[in-house]
């Protein structure tokens, strides 16, 4: 608390300046959400374009319009690759990671631990605007003639030999990566040093724990990705040969460095998503966290420890000695143990709970099933023998979309509905939200279940033309229909959010009767400094003290 006086408070003016130049964690969080949802919409439109192009084998030419090539100067393949690049890079780097470790962490962590703000508010604002700068660089894809066409992975040698602009990919990663590193510094320090007096490590909200885990992963692994893409930049534009085999470089070196970050990145997304689900489920089921310590020390910290030893399963078919692939198969399968502990806790929290169902809880319950489906389909991919058949098919694509595209995304949606009354003082749980929910959930299953089936039968991923597999056309047609349902659902949902933010029904400060600090100790929305007086919690307090 910086300048508290007993005199009359300064009037709480709040114009546009107090928003765009803000260093307040709540407003930074909301600005993160706005930017992340903008990226989600654009990247989602790219995804829709991909599905429309795949509706029939052969060329439709429609994908060119999606990437801004209205004059049809690009080939279908080039346009498709550009759409694929933007969809992947923006969904992961500009939507999921900023929505979970930007929006949710910013808005919730200081409130949940009873702190007035994060440790370094201006560095926090720097992270936010670096993220927006990255989005701007990514959006330039649509205006430059040489659109990046290297997926979100940027594998050499193609990314070095292509005539497309690899630099914008690299700089998008740099800007987001730097924002993540600064975010990690901020949140690790905040969680370690700024918890309210009396709040021990075993009394933190699950979301605070998962954010802690996610940022430990970020600080260790993001820098390696930054190094890898920097070398890619040097290779392409300065003439070095790190990844160029003709000059003594090693293509697999890039893949190793890339996945050394990018598999842990899955857990950077997975952990906070799980944390949000824990807090939503515990609140709506009015129950304590089942096996809290096992979920925290075995589950979350277990993932943090094992996450750095599994990346090679992305390279199985690249060729490697058996002792490496089998060793990495074991570690990859081993990570199901902490994930299993977390899942047991999640389901156990529902057990004997007094469950209230609302839109956020619906999404949360759907997520429980999505984790199961997405996790179990990962096991064949981890096994070195089965993966030979499944690798590079749409089975892989459907598998990770279940975890990242559906589970983590729905966790973000659930969080927005759950904390909407906190952010705005109004409820977003209005009829349009329920309609949107059914469109989104049913549509997403219709989209991805056929892709599992044709993936097993051999449909390659990343192909825009599948004329050699005409028998898959009906499945693609169904999947495209599903993606249209998702598009309707997401549109309704966002319309609902905007409407509810200004016109939604007003609700009380603690509409869910939660025991967590952000609901019990401050008003909605909280003012500057969050709490009217420094928060202190006593012996018997826990955020899940419902019994």
């Amino acid at each position: 608390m910086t300048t508290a006086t007993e005199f009359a408070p300064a009037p709480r003016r709040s114009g546009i300046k107090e928003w765009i130049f803000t260093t307040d964690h709540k407003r930074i969080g909301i600005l993160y959400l706005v930017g992340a949802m903008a990226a989600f919409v654009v990247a989602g439109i790219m995804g829709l374009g991909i599905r429309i192009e795949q509706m029939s084998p052969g060329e439709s030419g429609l994908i060119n319009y999606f990437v801004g090539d209205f004059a049809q100067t690009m080939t279908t393949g080039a346009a498709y690759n550009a759409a694929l690049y933007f969809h992947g890079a923006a969904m992961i780097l500009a939507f999921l990671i900023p929505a979970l470790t930007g929006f949710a962490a910013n808005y919730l962590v200081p409130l949940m631990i009873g702190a007035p703000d994060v440790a370094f508010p201006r560095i926090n604002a720097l992270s936010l605007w670096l993220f927006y700068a990255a989005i701007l660089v990514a959006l330039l894809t649509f205006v430059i003639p040489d659109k990046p066409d290297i997926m979100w992975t940027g594998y050499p040698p193609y990314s070095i030999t292509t005539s497309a602009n690899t630099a914008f990919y690299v700089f998008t990663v740099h800007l987001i990566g730097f924002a993540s590193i600064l975010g990690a510094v901020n949140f690790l320090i905040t969680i370690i040093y700024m918890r309210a007096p009396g709040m021990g490590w075993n009394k933190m909200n699950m979301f605070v724990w998962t954010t802690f885990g996610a940022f430990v992963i970020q600080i260790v692994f993001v820098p390696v990705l930054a190094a890898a893409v920097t070398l890619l930049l040097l290779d392409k534009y300065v003439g070095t040969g790190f990844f160029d085999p003709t000059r003594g470089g090693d293509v697999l070196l890039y893949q190793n460095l890339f996945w050394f970050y990018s598999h842990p990145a899955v857990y950077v997304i997975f952990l906070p998503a799980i944390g949000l689900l824990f807090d939503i489920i515990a609140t709506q089921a009015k129950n304590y966290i089942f096996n809290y310590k096992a979920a925290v020390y075995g589950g979350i910290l277990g993932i943090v420890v094992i996450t750095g030893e599994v990346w090679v399963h992305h390279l199985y078919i690249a060729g490697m000695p058996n002792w490496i692939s089998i060793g990495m198969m074991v570690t990859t399968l081993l990570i199901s143990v902490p994930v299993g502990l977390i899942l047991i806790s999640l389901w156990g929290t529902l057990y004997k709970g007094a469950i209230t169902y609302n839109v956020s809880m619906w999404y949360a319950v759907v997520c429980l099933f999505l984790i199961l489906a997405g996790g179990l389909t990962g096991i064949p991919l981890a096994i070195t023998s089965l993966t030979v058949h499944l690798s590079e098919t749409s089975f892989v694509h459907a598998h990770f979309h279940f975890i990242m595209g559906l589970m983590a995304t729905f966790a973000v949606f659930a969080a927005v509905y759950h904390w909407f009354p906190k952010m705005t003082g109004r409820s977003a749980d209005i009829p349009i939200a329920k309609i949107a929910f059914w469109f989104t959930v049913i549509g997403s299953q219709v989209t991805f279940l056929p892709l599992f089936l044709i993936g097993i039968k051999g449909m390659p991923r990343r192909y825009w033309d599948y004329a050699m597999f005409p028998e898959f056309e009906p499945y693609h047609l169904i999947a495209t229909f599903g993606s249209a349902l998702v598009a309707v659902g997401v549109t309704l949902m966002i319309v609902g959010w905007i409407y509810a933010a200004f016109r939604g029904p007003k609700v009380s400060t603690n509409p869910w009767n939660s025991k967590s600090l952000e609901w019990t100790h401050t008003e909605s929305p909280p003012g500057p400094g969050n709490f009217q007086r420094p928060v202190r919690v006593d012996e018997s307090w826990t955020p899940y003290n419902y019994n």
Partner: protein
Amino acid sequence: MQQVVQGEARATHEHHWEVSWAPMAVAFGVMFLIPLAFSAYFVYQRPLLAIICAGIGTPLVLAGVAKWIHEGATQHSAISNVSPVGIGVFIIGEILIFLGLFASYWTMRISSGAAGELWPPAGTPHINLVLPLFMTGLLVASSFTYHYGEHKLNDGRKGWFLVWLLVSIILGAGFLACTAYEYVHLFAEGFVPGTNQYSAAFYSLTGFHGAHVLVGLLAFAAILFGMIVGNVNKMFVKVAGIYWHFVDVIWLFVASQVYYW
């Protein structure tokens, strides 16, 4: 049980919304200065556009940083005493970047033929091995002088701190001057980043380290500027010192790997 404080008057509560335009200026300045200027020059070969981008970016970054330093010197934060831990966490990230670069270098070395027979690869001129020793001396000495200066500052002797700060800046600048001298000579001999694998590793590692020295020197310049204006932020002095020691230590790894292996 919880002390429910809802509905109480806000009278005892502070405050206004904190604002600062500095972070936004720095972020967008960086965007113009690095991604856009680099792309204009290297990707699209438009030097004029590159200069314009850099011309927009540089003042934005400088103004943002100046504003930031000014705010840091005048505003107090209840929790700023954790800054040394914050820079520690940041340094973990930095170490991992260097590890990524080292891993690339090691991979090249190991795959370059049995027992490094083919190392250094063809096209490598004679590399002066005395100069890096001298550079190491400069950097290590600057770490000690800065540390000594910090002691003086904590004893309240600002004049001596200023002297030792200046000595550290001169030593650090001398290090960069040696790097520049070395680069100019190697370039003249045709040893550029694209020459061979060794040049790639050499320039990426020493260049990335040199950039860190530059950042450290800029932090020192900021402290110097603050002293002239009459503001010394001891916390910033300490943080800059921790960073400088890190830059110093990592140089020992860079030098031993690049020059003497």
